[in-house]
């Protein structure tokens, strides 16, 4: 059974903290994505990675960075968390071909106070 696992389901952090959101997939997928989901705005792409150590900015990369040291793991980093980064974060992975199904983690609801 395919699996994408996000390290936390709920997270509360303070303004200014450095926050790490981890995502691990066990399907040997080349491509991994980080989205944030907000009511009325849908899923917005933050960053994606098509190979180890490779990354591309999505539509809203400001305030975020990513790390992909191993194929199975894609980390989202909030360098200095702010209240406007309170959101649901979703990780996804797909194979090397773009017409295939994206597999999602269960989401991390991050609250920055």
């Amino acid at each position: 059974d395919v699996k994408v696992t996000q390290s936390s389901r709920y997270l509360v952090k303070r303004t200014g903290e450095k926050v790490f959101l981890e995502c691990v997939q066990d399907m040997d997928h080349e491509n991994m994505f980080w989205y944030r989901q907000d009511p009325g705005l849908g899923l917005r792409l933050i960053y994606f990675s098509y190979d180890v150590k490779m990354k591309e900015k999505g539509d809203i990369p400001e305030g975020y960075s990513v790390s992909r040291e191993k194929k199975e793991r894609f980390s989202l980093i909030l360098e200095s968390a702010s209240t406007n980064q309170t959101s649901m974060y979703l990780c996804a992975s797909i194979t090397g071909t773009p017409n295939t199904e994206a597999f999602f983690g269960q989401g991390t609801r991050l609250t920055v106070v």
Partner: protein
Amino acid sequence: AQTVTQSQPEMSVQEAETVTLSCTYDTSENNYYLFWYKQPPSRQMILVIRQEAYKQQNATENRFSVNFQKAAKSFSLKISDSQLGDTAMYFCASSTSGTYKYIFGTGTRLKVLA
């Protein structure tokens, strides 16, 4: 630029009836793919149906079918014989062979009424 637009924030349908969710998209790529995903209250995203742009025939998966109008850049989802378990957020999405970017719309919240 690659964009996906869903103009219906919320919809409702009576159980056993048919409902159509709308989606329009834009892309400069020739090779692209379109998807509908479902997100139930559990938050787990599930693929409902997919369509390759080069295929003229509309995709069908059991009670779910699409109406793909390439010239109009329209990709609507029809749910027949709606069931209570169809209550969820539905997202339209596109990907391209050029960039591998997987882009989603803003979603339509569907409620199936008993």
